[in-house]
């Protein structure tokens, strides 16, 4: 079984897969950074008493969570340019998709973490004379932030894997490079297995780092 395949030959394609890997990491890191900012803003929106801010944040979250990432990617790359009459480079489109998509999920993580802090914490703060903003800043946020870390790590891993879907909009990331090689050299088994291992290497590393952070911060 194993012998039929040219596993050593895969090494010849490492430079090309390596380029793909770099794009995957680039889009993941930039996309998640922007996604984190979007998530923080719209997470606040979901917690806001301001009806307009709350509604905008809710529509954003529901639309993104309610549509497949693949549809979002194709829409941004093929439909959006027709609307704004401006062609997006595939990499920009990819970053937009990952940012906007992860932002919606991160917004829910932010909201959930803040709402999971017992009501008594805010009340204790207010009863001591802290303003609402002071109580949020010194009491609620530090506790909520700790609770966000495990689900955020989970979302990071999901988003990194999601970047593979961007191959359909021609982002030259890892999956795209793998498909390119496999279709030219008919070594689908070796290449796709290798691609899978690359993703696994990234996600396992991230899991490991996250577990370390969680241990350091004493998160159960």
């Amino acid at each position: 079984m194993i012998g039929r395949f040219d596993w050593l030959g895969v090494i010849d394609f490492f430079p090309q897969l390596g380029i793909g890997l770099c794009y995957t990491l680039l889009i993941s890191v930039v996309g998640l950074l922007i996604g984190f900012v979007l998530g923080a803003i719209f997470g606040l929106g979901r917690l806001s008493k301001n009806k307009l801010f709350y509604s905008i944040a809710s529509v954003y979250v529901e639309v993104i969570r309610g549509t497949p990432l693949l549809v979002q990617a194709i829409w941004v790359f093929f439909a959006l340019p027709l609307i704004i009459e401006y062609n997006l480079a595939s990499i920009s489109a990819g970053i937009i998709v990952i940012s906007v998509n992860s932002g919606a999920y991160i917004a829910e993580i932010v909201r959930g973490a803040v709402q999971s802090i017992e009501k008594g914490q805010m009340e204790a703060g207010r009863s001591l004379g802290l303003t609402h903003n002071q109580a949020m800043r010194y009491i609620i946020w530090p506790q909520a932030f700790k609770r966000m870390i495990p689900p955020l790590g989970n979302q990071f891993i999901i988003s990194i894997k999601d970047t593979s879907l961007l191959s359909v909009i021609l982002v030259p990331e890892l999956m795209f490079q793998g498909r390119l090689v496999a279709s030219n050299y008919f070594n689908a088994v070796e290449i796709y297995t290798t691609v899978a291992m690359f993703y696994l290497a990234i996600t396992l590393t991230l899991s490991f780092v996250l577990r370390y952070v969680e241990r350091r911060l004493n998160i159960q």
Partner: protein
Amino acid sequence: MIKVRQLYKKFGDNEVLRGIDCEMKEKEVVCVIGPSGSGKSTFLRCLNLLETITSGEVIIDGENIMNPNIDINKIRTEVGMVFQQFNLFPHKNVMENIILAPMKVRKLSREEAIARGEKLLEKVGLSDKGRSYPQQLSGGQQQRVAIARALAMEPKLMLFDEPTSALDPELVGEVLAVMKQLAEEGMTMIVVTHEMGFAREVADRVLFMDHGLIVEEGTPEQIFTSPRSERTKEFLNKVL
């Protein structure tokens, strides 16, 4: 020092307080007793505006807290509250729990706040626990820290909402002892409690609440030995 007139509180259609009248002098210790759901917590929470008051008048230390121009946070700094569930801040150690509000609200320097915190920890018998985190303390210790934290704002009035109800029986005494000492030092206190022994010993006055009303009030002696209202008798028979 406190004057409450015709205090009403509704949650939606549910009328929880139905016209509370009560007055309290400085240094007075009042215990509030009554069945669960009678509105005792809600009454306390209205006094420091953790609940919005539906109607009525509450005057604390000459200030009408219903006045829309009044600074709610200022009122709250004058009224300390101790909760059944302690509500210590789990991400801060004991000393940080105590000094947070004095620094952020009273604008004390860190040194001043810590000096104050050390005095208070000594008072509640926890001098050696400043660096501990709440999870490392017993319930009784946590509640004593919560009392110290409230006192750090130097309030004129302290509210206690069933401060010992979440404690194991063997830890109740240490918390009541701190409260008793506080009462002897002249703190004005309202204590919702099921500890009838404490009420009898420490309270100047006992209020019996039922269905959102103060049904009966009097000295502990009078309430516990010769209650006038049938409902008070019934309640006391159940708990004593």
